[in-house]
């Protein structure tokens, strides 16, 4: 969640508090490099989960679940203790299974590979295995792409049994995903786009020029140490709906609190800051939702000042991001165009005392409270349509998430995502117990991805309504001019009742929209 103030250079726009904690951020795949020395480098650590049900189902300290697909999953406990010990070395290297290459059986069996290579076939990044050992493999990928290109065409997808190979060409940069995760082509292609965006965020598109000068240019040194950023992004592909919805999400806050936070950030407007963002916990969301996602994914240290590029804002230019953690969960990002602004911004923070004002005005406490209470819970869905709550913050309405184990909503409702089209924001319900484990959640997100891809088909979409039933779920989707609703039900749910429940969800979201969405802030001009 975050508060954000933004605008074109000195044109500051209104702000509010955004939130992005709806995810199961206490179930994080271990992939990231840890800044061990930094106490608040909680970048990829899910601290307290926003949903008590999740914590209670999997809240054992540092359990590391290694599945047969090689996806290592850490279930952090409520104190945010991360696993220590044997696997630490691997963490710090920031890459798992670095000893593997394309000759290893284990490597071949990984469920989802990502590769970045140059147009001359030089490896730049591989999710698994040592890039240098994968030079031959990388050359093969390059050969496939250029062979089809020489024939006057462009390869997009190769399908073989459960496997898909997806290609994306971005100038001199080739990106390839090899996956048997059953995600649709459109989703995987979108993930490659984000992966490219993450690279641009670190380097800007001016790297293209290096390739113009020298086609055999070796990019790996430029990206040194950023493995963790890519791993974390790849991890979020199966954890964070923002990656396929292209929208961000906000922490529920009373309207007045968000207004107050926005006003506080507004004060830095005169200091050359392009955007000011107050974020919380795991990072998702962006200025353009995708930019915010990539930026949030990049942030990992307690206080830093780094050059970054927002690919959707301006892929050719660097901005400078000043990051400051206000507490374990909450951090402030100031974006400026000036590379000399570090001390100025540090000062600006002190001068305006954002920190103290935020905490005096109780914003930080409210943020913490909301974090512990979590987002929308399906078992709170008002069953009686006449009983509108109007607010999530009525007395006794919200409880600390640990005290509640949601058992699923009415009529077999398991989960929903509501996306407001104009606001570029979505709200996603907390997970109830039938989908409490990371693998269950991943499966649900993948089902949503298929639903999303099918609704938004490029040729014939968007469709208006979809009902989809398989052995796992009944899924319902509406796409209207104003919003999109994605809802998952038990596979035995009755169609008629499920439709009624969906209508209630929409009504509920509308009733509390001032608290779950950031209104009137995202008037950026691009």
């Amino acid at each position, binding site marked *: 969640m975050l508060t954000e103030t933004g605008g074109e250079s000195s044109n500051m726009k209104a702000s509010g508090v955004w939130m992005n904690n709806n995810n199961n951020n206490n179930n994080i795949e271990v992939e990231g490099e840890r800044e061990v020395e930094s106490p608040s480098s909680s970048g990829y650590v899910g601290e307290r989960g926003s949903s008590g049900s999740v914590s209670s189902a999997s809240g054992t300290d540092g359990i590391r679940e290694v599945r047969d697909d090689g996806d290592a999953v850490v279930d952090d406990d409520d104190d945010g203790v991360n696993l220590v010990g044997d696997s630490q070395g691997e963490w710090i290297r920031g890459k798992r299974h670095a000893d593997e290459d394309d000759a290893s059986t284990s490597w071949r069996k990984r469920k989802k590979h990502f590769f970045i290579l140059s147009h001359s076939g030089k490896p730049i990044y591989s999710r698994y295995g040592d890039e240098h050992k994968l030079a031959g493999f990388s050359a093969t990928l390059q050969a496939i792409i250029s062979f089809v290109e020489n024939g006057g065409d462009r390869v997009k997808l190769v399908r073989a049994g459960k496997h898909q190979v997806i290609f994306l060409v971005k100038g001199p940069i080739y990106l390839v995903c090899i996956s048997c995760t059953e995600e649709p082509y459109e989703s995987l292609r979108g993930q490659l786009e984000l992966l490219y965006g993450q690279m641009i965020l670190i380097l800007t598109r001016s790297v293209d020029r290096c390739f113009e000068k020298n086609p055999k240019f070796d990019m790996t040194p430029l990206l040194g140490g950023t493995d963790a950023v890519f791993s974390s992004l790849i991890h979020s592909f199966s954890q964070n709906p923002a990656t396929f919805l292209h929208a961000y999400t906000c922490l529920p806050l009373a309207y007045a609190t968000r207004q107050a936070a926005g006003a506080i950030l507004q004060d830095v407007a005169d200091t050359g800051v392009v955007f000011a963002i107050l974020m919380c916990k795991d990072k998702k969301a962006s200025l353009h939702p995708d930019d915010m996602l990539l930026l949030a994914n990049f942030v990992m240290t307690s206080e830093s000042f780094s050059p970054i590029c927002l690919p959707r804002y301006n892929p050719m230019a660097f901005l400078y991001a000043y990051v400051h953690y206000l507490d374990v969960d909450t951090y402030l990002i100031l974006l400026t165009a000036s590379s000399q602004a570090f001390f100025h911004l540090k000062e600006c923070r002190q001068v305006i005392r954002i920190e103290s004002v935020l905490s005096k005005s109780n914003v930080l406490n409210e943020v913490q409270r909301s974090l512990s209470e979590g987002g929308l819970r399906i078992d709170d869905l008002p069953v009686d349509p006449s009983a509108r709550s109007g607010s999530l913050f009525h007395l006794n309405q919200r409880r600390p998430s640990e005290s509640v184990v949601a058992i699923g909503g009415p009529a077999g409702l398991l989960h929903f995502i509501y996306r407001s089209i104009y606001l570029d924001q979505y709200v996603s319900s907390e997970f109830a117990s039938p989908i409490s484990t990371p693998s269950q959640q991943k499966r649900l997100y993948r089902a949503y991805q298929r639903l999303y891809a099918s609704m938004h088909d490029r040729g014939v979409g968007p469709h208006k*309504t979809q009902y989809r039933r398989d*052995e796992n779920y009944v899924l319902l989707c509406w796409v209207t001019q104003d919003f999109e609703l994605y809802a998952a039900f038990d596979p035995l749910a009755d169609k*008629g009742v499920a439709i009624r429940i969906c209508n209630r969800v929409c009504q509920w979201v509308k009733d509390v929209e001032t608290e779950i969405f950031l209104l009137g802030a995202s008037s950026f001009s691009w």
Partner: protein
Amino acid sequence: MGLSSAANTTTTSEPLKLCIFDLRRGQHEGEELEKILFFFPADLPFPAQLSVVGLSEGLITFTRIFSPEAACEVIEAEMHSHVFFEAEPDIWMVMVVAKNKETEAIWRIEALRSVLKEIHSLFVMFHGSIRMLLDKEPGGGLIRSHLYTFIMDYLSDFLMGNKFLLPNFRDSLKERGTVQMLTVGREAAIEVQSLVGTLDSCMGNALGYSVILFQDLLVSTTLSPDDTVNLFSYGILRLTQRILSSGGSTWSYLRKGNASSHAESALDRLHGLQDGSSVRGDNFQILRPLQHGKWSKGKDGFLVTDIWGVEVGNLVPTTPTIWLQQTEHKMYLCAYQHKSLTIILLIPVTSMLNGEEGISMLKQQLLENASLKIHKVEEKLAKGWGGENAYHVKGYRYLLVDGDSNISRASPSGKVTTLTKESLLALNKVREDFDLERNRTKGDDLEICIRAKNNSWVIARAARGKQLYIVLEKANETLLYASEAVEKFSDRYCNGAFSLD
């Protein structure tokens, strides 16, 4: 990986490329051409042909790294789709089609793959397996000339003017590789049963099979489902009364009664085929079972053709023979036609010790013992036949597929053409989605129901080995209404196979 083997001169102008290659051949550098057993268009320069084969082989090898049990099935590029089918171990068929929205070249991969499957299974039915012919003549000349004539004859059915009309999104309510059944009343069914018994007894101890068609619909079969599909496909391509009376062939409603003979001559001109029942390519005698206009009805009601040659001396055409898929038995094919009724008898070659003589005796027996029954059955079926739109269900456009028995039923083509392009495109997509989903879950209980941009409902259901696809264009806007419409259809026409309760 074969990728570097050829100069890449593929041009994007070819709307259709089709090739068959054998990965066991041409392993050495400079011998790559040996791999290619068939290529269309044949006049494409060799480097361009090798480039298609090289890419295909490269990706087969590449995908096996990750997916050893199922190699490359499709390559989607911006302008082309490459559809793969491993017809026999190491023998691959690859079809490359250009995409083009303006010319409605919008494809569903599985529909294209079913064309490849049909080519192969028909080929095997007439000539035996590709590997067998390769083993017979390792030089490859034999198989090449067989494949060439066979596939060119097959493709001629898709030729309109000088363009190939492959099954595109407009054919989404059809399922190639299935048979369409005639629904018969109880009384007629008993008559048919009795006729089948009589046919059996005509064949005596020969352990033969019979297939009965009425118009373009299957009435009865004693063959296995796979062999039935092959024979049925051949029947409606070349044998039924409608085909014979039209003097050439028809393929579908689009092409009804036109173009085909003209198409063939265009093809023949293009590729220098002689207008003979067999051609001698590379000194091999080649049967052309798919050649147009080669079947006719004799005075005695039996269908005759000289495709299989003529007996020296008496000018009596040789009886056709085919191979059964499962048993790999060679069978005589003997077809009899009375009005709209076509009866195909298959008799094992091994049980006919006296060959052609035995066949004439069998024919004689059939005329003596069965013709009365045949007439009676034809009359009954003709009376009960509801015409071209017999299986139209008002308000619905549908396709029902029974995957276990390879049977399908669909709205009549004429009715499907009333659907808007948008609905058909949405259906095509839903079918593609459904193909993937069925493949993914291996599940048999799936449902997708979409309200498209143009407000039509597109519904796909799978249950108990069956699939149902429905388009409702004039339906109410609620999902419940659409679901109810499907339930009604399921209860009335599918014995409730898709009903929820």
